[in-house]
């Protein structure tokens, strides 16, 4: 998190330009990180609309913080720290429960529609859908911090050190979180091989 790291971080440079009043640089940052933030939040709360709402809040907070921004950490570390904080709060508040209910309804709708279509791939699609549902349930049942660690490790390809900074814990704590999380996932998903 030293100055050297920050000096190499182009995103931090862009954020400093935003701080200086350059709105276009905020657009560049948004373009660059929008998808990663939304997909991380989607897999955290498991609902697209809720994920986008939270992602909006993430970027809004980034924009609001522009005047006090200091590049003391990698920009993505800061970004994902905000995203994780919001996701954990949303999960604790149970804000996504109503969305989850709608999602379940939606999943049922998809099943019905596929059966009605009577396409040759219906069976395959249903098997795939069931497998995906199993993966989603397995991830959803992980403790929140383990879930966040797995998602950053697997999908965002973050190093242990960066995940540690995002979650504000030690690297060894992250290794421990990941080991336990994958242990749980192996118990639930290993049969899918």
């Amino acid at each position, binding site marked *: 998190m030293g100055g050297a790291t920050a000096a190499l971080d182009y995103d931090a440079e862009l954020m400093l330009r935003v701080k200086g*009043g350059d709105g276009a640089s905020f657009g560049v940052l948004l373009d660059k990180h*929008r998808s990663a933030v939304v997909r991380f939040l989607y897999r955290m709360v498991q609902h697209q609309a809720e994920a*986008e709402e939270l*992602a909006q809040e993430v970027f809004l907070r980034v*924009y609001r913080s522009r005047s006090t921004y200091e590049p003391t950490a990698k920009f993505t570390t800061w970004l994902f720290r905000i995203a994780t904080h919001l996701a954990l709060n949303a999960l604790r508040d149970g804000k996504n429960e109503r969305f989850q209910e709608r999602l379940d309804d939606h999943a049922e709708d998809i099943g019905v529609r596929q059966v009605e279509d009577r396409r040759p791939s219906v069976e395959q699609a249903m098997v795939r859908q069931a497998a995906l549902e199993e*993966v989603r349930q397995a991830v959803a049942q992980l403790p929140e911090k383990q879930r966040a660690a797995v998602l950053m490790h*697997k999908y965002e390809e973050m190093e242990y050190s960066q995940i540690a900074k995002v979650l504000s814990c030690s690297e060894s704590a992250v290794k421990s979180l990941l080991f336990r999380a994958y242990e749980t*996932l192996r118990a639930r*998903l290993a049969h899918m091989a």
Partner: protein
Amino acid sequence: MKCPLEDRENREILLAYGSRARNGSDTELESHLQTCPACREFVRGQRAVWQALEEWEAEPVSADFDRRLFARIERETPWWRRAGGFRLVLFRALPITAAAALAVVGVVLEWPTPHRVQPRPPAAQVEGLRPDEVVQALDEMEVLNQFNRSIKADSAAPRM
């Protein structure tokens, strides 16, 4: 090689091998895997998990995501901040603004109006004087001052 499963510090090697590092570069670990069924099972399970997670694709972001975000930013920005933004633009364009303002003032002043009062000529045309004329005038003033002083001295002295 010590079994990674029995070594708390090195078990992430096994995790990494079952996740990303599948290029077979870790020959030491591979040798160990051939003799350790527990580690083999661990790697097999980890690869299954990795593959299962791979299948879980995220949905694309809504097309109006940016529009909604910028609308929220706009709503949150108070009017005086927006005015501040306008002032900033004005400040950046200050040289152009100043030049334009001067041009407008110039045109207004030079515009012929029927009721304009002609300016009176200045009492002293200083611009019209040559340097030698100025020097001469100063010399004359000095002479006059000396003359005044001598007259005052004479009048102040007791009369006989």
